[in-house]
């Protein structure tokens, strides 16, 4: 080792550079960069529903990361998720009446635990439990709430079947809700094409509780929102006779195709439906 070959230094530099690159990749570009450093304390929270929350998901206050989810377990005795949060020791001033909520970052992003401070003078300590929690908001539930009662009505008290014929059902499929005044009262049982009359025969299964629907009511295929699923809306008529099992609804309004609507809007009456196109518009407007 008396004389050092010229390549030895270069080789050493190369090895150091390689390991430096590995260290950089491992610590700066992976989730290791997010893992909390330094001491932390553990707080528990019980959620009714954690949605897609995962271990090591961030815990945030005012959008700032203060820790991470340490573990998620189902409480064996109750139907709640037991979530342990590891919070950085620096943030030890969290009031013990703070609310832990599961949020979603963006529309499609990952979920995280957000803590909103309460007003209590006492702060949470290691091992404490945040009693006030809000579960993860399921997108389906929110949309359902937004567009009126979501999904099909429960079918506990039995149902009766009513037929309706449409010249065009759009994308209506079996299982779609049947709504009256925006509230689900049943579901579509089947959608079939009639080989003779060349139209669509839709069978509606309506809850027995709603047996006071006049038999001259109109059925229309609507779309919830711009890109939502389609449903059948029933607009009550004025007849003293009520719909019974096996009846057929005479007045129907077919699904409005967005192409038709745009066409009508641009050039009035470019492709007119069999039914009057004006009939649906005020209703559709008032519904949403």
């Amino acid at each position: 080792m008396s004389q050092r070959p010229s390549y030895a230094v270069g080789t050493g530099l190369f090895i150091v550079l390689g390991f430096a690159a590995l260290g950089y990749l491992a610590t700066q570009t992976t989730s290791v960069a997010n893992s909390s450093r330094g001491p932390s304390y553990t707080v528990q929270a019980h959620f009714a529903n954690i949605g897609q929350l995962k271990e090591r998901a961030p815990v945030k206050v005012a959008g700032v990361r203060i820790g991470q989810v340490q573990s998620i377990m189902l409480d064996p005795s109750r139907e709640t998720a037991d979530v342990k949060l590891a919070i950085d020791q620096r943030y030890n001033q969290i009031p013990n009446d703070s609310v832990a909520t599961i949020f979603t970052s963006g529309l499609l992003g990952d979920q995280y635990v957000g803590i909103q401070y309460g007003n209590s003078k006492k702060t949470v300590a290691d091992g404490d439990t945040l009693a006030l929690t809000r579960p993860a908001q399921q997108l389906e539930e929110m949309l359902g709430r937004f567009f009126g009662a979501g999904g099909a009505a429960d079918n506990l008290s039995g149902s009766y079947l009513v037929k309706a014929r449409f010249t065009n059902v759009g994308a209506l499929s079996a299982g779609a809700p049947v709504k009256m005044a925006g509230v689900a009262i049943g579901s579509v049982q089947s959608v079939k094409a009639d080989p003779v009359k060349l139209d669509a025969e839709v069978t509606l299964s309506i809850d027995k509780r709603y047996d006071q629907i006049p038999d001259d009511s109109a059925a229309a295929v609507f779309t919830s929102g711009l890109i939502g699923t389609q449903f059948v809306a029933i607009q009550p008529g004025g007849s003293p006779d009520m719909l019974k099992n096996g009846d057929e609804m005479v007045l129907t309004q077919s699904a409005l195709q967005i192409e038709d609507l745009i066409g009508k809007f641009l050039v009035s009456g470019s492709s007119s439906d069999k039914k009057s196109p004006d009939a649906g518009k005020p209703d559709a407007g008032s519904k949403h």
Partner: protein
Amino acid sequence: MSVPMSRDNIVLRSLSQIGDCGLFLLRILASVPRSLRHLRETVRQLWFVGAMSLIIIMVCGLFVGMVLGLQLYDVLSIFGGTSATGTVVAIAIYRELGPVVTALLFAGRAGTSVTAEIGLMRATDQIAAMEMMAVDPIAYVIVPRFLAGVIAMPLLCCVFCALGIFGGHLVGVSWLGIDNGTFWSNMTATVDLVKDVINGVLWKSVVFGTVVSLIAVFQGYTTPPTSEGVAYATTRTVVASSIAILALDFVLTAFLM
């Protein structure tokens, strides 16, 4: 070691090549303790196959990262998801492009020169001369080159990946205007240390380095001692390495997933 030159079945010939290659690997591994006396030779080979390949690896890594950033930004902007560019660049480079492209470049840059060097030693009877002087050519010539390749490949791959990330950052953030914080935070939120860096970058590159080095020294050592033979051996190194890298990449991915 017999060189299988019989012109029978191509399947039998390839099988016997693979078998010879495996036996050769065992001979190399058996000679590793003896070659530790020639540690300086290993360092010198590490300089040749590793440090001298740095420039091409760095330039290629930079451009691969840049083109990934550009393409992904273009596609992701259709879905309004350009903030995921950093994540996808990192995952694509760590899991596939880093190890595979580095290994292909390594086979072309270092594997061929190792094959040609050993082949010429064989053609000019240097290897026979070593055997005459009771110097084990496996321990003195083959093992240092093999070890150098195995060590250099993961290091080169890490450099490639780092430059790739830098290239993606350069295009995505500096040129196309993705937010710097978004770029990094999305990346660190998704990229996993074990799944992406250790399984992707390290494991794959160690396996590829072993395979490319083995093919290079085997082809050089078993080359027919003619100038034509050396030319063939060099070509075969690149062809066999490329096939082995891409096939093993699939197998490794399936196992490491």
